């Protein structure tokens, strides 16, 4: 036996254990929109701010929103930050970039999809840019392993949608996402910390299923165009004039105060406050789901 062969075997052994706690997250992961299906699909109802830990500024800003802002050439492609990974309908295509010399993972990549930019999770210990560095739709993300959970921290994003009905994040927001793999299921637990619009972190969890179907890495790009909004105007509602503020009451019997969100609306104890105000809603009329025809 030669010394080279000995070294080769040792290298193979070490390569098999690049870091024993790391997990292979690579592959195509299909989104299972079994929760918040409307929000992640067609889009949430207007005025549905339930569970959002707003401050007054965040709520006021959301109530001023008109979805027609997305028809402005400047904003057609602008509102989808990395958070869209959690609230969009699309899956996750993920792989790791490796230093060809050391074999170490330099970054985990989540492919872009339409309006959402690529997420590159730097694993090489580089610092985040300074607070005055430019922001981008992609933001800047670093990752660390904690046991078998990859934790990614994203900063330097542009303002974007927290919920696609006008609930916004500011450019001061930080997104922290935990990637948890259990066999064929990958769960993402993610929070947004936003000192401008939120009183506390907004935390949601989503599950994805590994698929052998090759998932597109990119999708059609978002292209700004003229959709008829006159130059120099921003579609909006003035304070107190949003005509859709009672949509959740009309559709689901949910009191307006609950629909308007706030951290207490995510607390189980909040049910006691609205019990006597809740009106049993009529039978579902639209966006009702159910089995596809023939099932």
């Amino acid at each position, binding site marked *: 036996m030669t010394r080279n062969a000995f070294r080769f075997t040792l290298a193979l052994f070490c390569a098999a254990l690049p870091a024993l706690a790391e997990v292979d997250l690579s592959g195509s992961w299909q989104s299972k929109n079994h*929760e918040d299906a409307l929000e992640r699909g067609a889009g949430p109802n207007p005025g549905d701010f339930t569970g959002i830990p707003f401050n007054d500024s965040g709520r006021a800003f959301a109530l001023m929103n008109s979805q027609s802002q997305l028809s402005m050439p400047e904003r057609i492609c602008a509102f989808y930050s990395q958070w869209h990974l959690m609230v969009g309908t699309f899956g996750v295509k993920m792989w790791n970039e490796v230093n060809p010399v050391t074999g170490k993972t330099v970054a985990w990549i989540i492919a872009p999809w339409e309006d959402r930019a690529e997420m590159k999770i730097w694993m090489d210990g580089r610092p985040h840019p300074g607070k005055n560095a430019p922001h981008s739709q992609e933001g800047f993300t670093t990752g660390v392993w*904690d046991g078998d959970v990859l934790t990614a921290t994203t900063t330097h994003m542009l303002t974007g949608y927290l919920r696609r009905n006008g609930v916004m994040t500011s450019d001061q927001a930080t997104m922290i996402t*935990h990637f948890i793999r*259990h066999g064929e*299921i990958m769960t993402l637990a993610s929070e947004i910390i936003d000192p401008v619009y939120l009183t506390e972190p907004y935390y949601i969890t989503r599950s994805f299923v590994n698929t052998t179907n090759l998932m597109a890495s990119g999708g059609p790009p978002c292209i700004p165009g003229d959709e008829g909004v006159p130059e120099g105007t921003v579609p909006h509602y003035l304070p107190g004039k949003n005509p859709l503020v009672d949509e959740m009451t009309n559709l689901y019997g949910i009191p307006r105060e609950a629909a308007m969100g706030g951290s207490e609306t*995510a607390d189980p104890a909040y049910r006691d406050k609205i*019990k006597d105000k809740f009106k049993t809603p009529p039978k579902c009329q639209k966006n009702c789901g159910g089995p596809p025809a023939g099932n």
Partner: protein
Amino acid sequence: MRFRLFALTMAAALPLVAQPPRGGRGGPPPTPQALAPIDLTGYWVSIVDEDWRYRMVVPPAGDYMGVPMNGASKRVADAWDPAKDEAAGEQCKAYGAPAILRQPEHLHITWQDDRTLKMETDAGTQTRLFHFGDWKAPGGPATWQGDSVAEWEITRGGRGGPAPEPNAPPQGKGSLKVMTTHLKAGYLRKNGVPYSDKAQLTEYYDEIREADGNLMMVVTIVTNDPEYLREPFIITSHFKKQAGADGWKPTPCSAKW
């Protein structure tokens, strides 16, 4: 010769990486409680910011968005009548194991003994028992919470770290897997979306320490039901650790609220 011996040693060492700690020489094997890689005990409160209108209030009849129902399921759900359920003493249908962690609630998790983890909920005043090891179900009629067997999924420290003590539980690296069968038929949602008594439940419990210091429990819930689902129903609930029993308020099951 030395190379072969070395390679053999390396190959033999590989599978040990994922093994949980074993008992010391001559001693009894460590108990599941002693092996726990994460501490799930204590009080937890659900953060209801997903599926809010399906969880915090009773959703409209016929609102099935998101659930991979089949036609048989829809026929059952379309006949949902909460008053009839209550009259029949079936008001806990939405508090069975596949749905109980979607209730707005507090959890109290303790070790009943060193092989059984107990989860109590204040919503519906339910109790689940997660049995480790070679537990055998006692039989009898199916129940809302079914029969649950549990195991730790344990990962060990990375290369370069100190070698773990043979019996020391790795801290913060691992999760709990729970598989539940023998369920009494119930509802996945309060508006009558059914699961059958053939349903099987698999859950993964993970703990995450957040940047603000809060400890979160993330539960990935997979319900398989050959009778009423076209594919596994996969949802994820999250809970925040509490310092004490604040807000703990046991309430009975309700079919109407």
